[in-house]
């Protein structure tokens, strides 16, 4: 075998390694600043298939299959009855792009360059958006209860005892850019959804100009991981954070999961390399925590 043939053979290495190496001539143009100040939906959710549902009764609903779970945007609190068939989610019936909703970035996120990441230089937290309270979220949930219930059922998750967690949480975040601070979008708050005591998804409320929109996230491996992790840490204050588009969940004992991606080892090595022995304490920010109640 000669060197050319060997180089040719190396072309067959796993896709994952090609993506991980992250070589792209476009990577220097990554809109880091935009991401840092963006008020859009969390970047940890990567759209795989997107489509737009018929807009009915003033409801703009967008559904995505995102890493195995359904995601539906509802613009504004509504009481209308919307029927969604999963098959419709695959074949769009209305050609409205997600960009037009202003709710979701649609690019494929470039792989993270771990070696270039930096921990925020200080512990200051920069706040974005107008705060949303548990009471506001609860009121919105109660007002739209039937719609939310029906949507979840339509998405294939039959529920007879739908409940929303009493308290929500946000995500403390940073992009790993030198000199940046930690960020917290106080206008975005996620609440876990249960069927009885079984975690089935979550609902994320976003407040903009006093109007509350919400996003339903149902099913998929994210909630399986999260459920197992939260059960292991009942009664503990769990910290939620985003590093670029990676969601990281940290328990007080330092246990970490990345429920949407397989980046756990990378994250742990990154923290270790940055000299962070206790990430929970280092990144602790009370509004980004959730206490699991049995």
């Amino acid at each position, binding site marked *: 075998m000669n060197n050319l043939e060997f180089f*040719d053979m190396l072309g067959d290495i796993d896709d994952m390694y090609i993506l991980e190496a992250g070589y792209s001539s476009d990577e220097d143009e990554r809109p880091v600043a935009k991401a840092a100040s963006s008020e859009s939906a969390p970047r940890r959710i990567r759209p795989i298939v997107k489509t737009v549902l018929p807009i009915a009764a003033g409801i703009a609903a967008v559904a995505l299959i995102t890493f195995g779970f359904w995601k539906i945007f509802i613009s504004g609190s509504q009481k209308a009855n919307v029927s969604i068939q999963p098959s419709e989610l695959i074949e769009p019936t209305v050609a409205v792009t997600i960009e037009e909703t202003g709710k979701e970035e649609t690019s494929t996120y470039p792989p993270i360059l771990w070696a270039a990441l930096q921990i925020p230089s200080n512990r200051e937290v920069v706040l974005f958006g107008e705060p949303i309270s548990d009471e506001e979220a609860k009121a919105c949930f109660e007002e739209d209860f039937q719609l939310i219930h029906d949507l979840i059922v339509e998405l294939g998750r039959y529920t007879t005892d739908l409940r929303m967690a009493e308290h929500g949480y946000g995500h403390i975040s940073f992009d790993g850019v030198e000199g940046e601070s930690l960020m917290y979008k106080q206008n975005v708050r996620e609440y876990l959804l249960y069927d009885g005591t079984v975690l089935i998804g979550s609902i994320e409320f976003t407040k903009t100009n006093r109007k509350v929109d919400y996003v339903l996230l149902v099913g998929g491996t994210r909630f399986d991981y999260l459920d197992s992790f939260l059960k292991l840490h009942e009664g503990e204050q769990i910290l939620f954070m985003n590093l670029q588009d990676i969601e990281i969940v940290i328990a007080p004992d330092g246990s970490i999961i990345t429920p949407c991606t397989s980046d756990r080892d990378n994250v742990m090595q990154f923290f270790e390399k940055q000299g962070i022995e206790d990430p929970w304490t280092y990144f602790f920010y009370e509004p980004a925590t959730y206490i699991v109640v049995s």
Partner: protein
Amino acid sequence: MDDVSIVQLFWNRSEKAISEVAKKYGRFCMTIARNILGNPEDSEECVNDAYLSLWNTIPPKKPSVLPPFLGRITRNLALNLYKKNHAEKRGGGEFPLVLEELSEVIAGSDSADSDLYKKEIMRVVSAFLAELTPEKRKLFVRRFWYADSVKNIAHQMKMTENNVSVTLNRLRTQLREKLQEGGLVS
């Protein structure tokens, strides 16, 4: 535009598919081609061929993540063109250095090149990559998949060129040892 929408354009046989791919991944492909071929004219030809190949491949294929798929097509086409050019004594640049480094790894390899032998080599390479730290793996892949220059790797990974060269040298030695352990090279 996201990858799924681009792939859908290919499935719809929309000519916009090519322009969207070019817009999003043009530079990505161009860089891979140029790393291997060294000159802009050949690289451009190669990238255009890659788009055409993509057009002919999708459908029936439906890749959910485009960069490795498209990158691999570009890499293969660039390599074929390199072989042709090399036979005609054209080309140059960084790629000969990459190949020279790979020669060290597979010196004493079987010249019979059976499928089984190649499969076994790839098994060892995959196991080797899986054991590396992400940082070292990226370095290896950038050099030997993307054929990236030491200078550029050093810049992108915030390392010195010397550090990159030394690490790559160690990685090559480690891989060679693995291949030797498996009796695949002498």
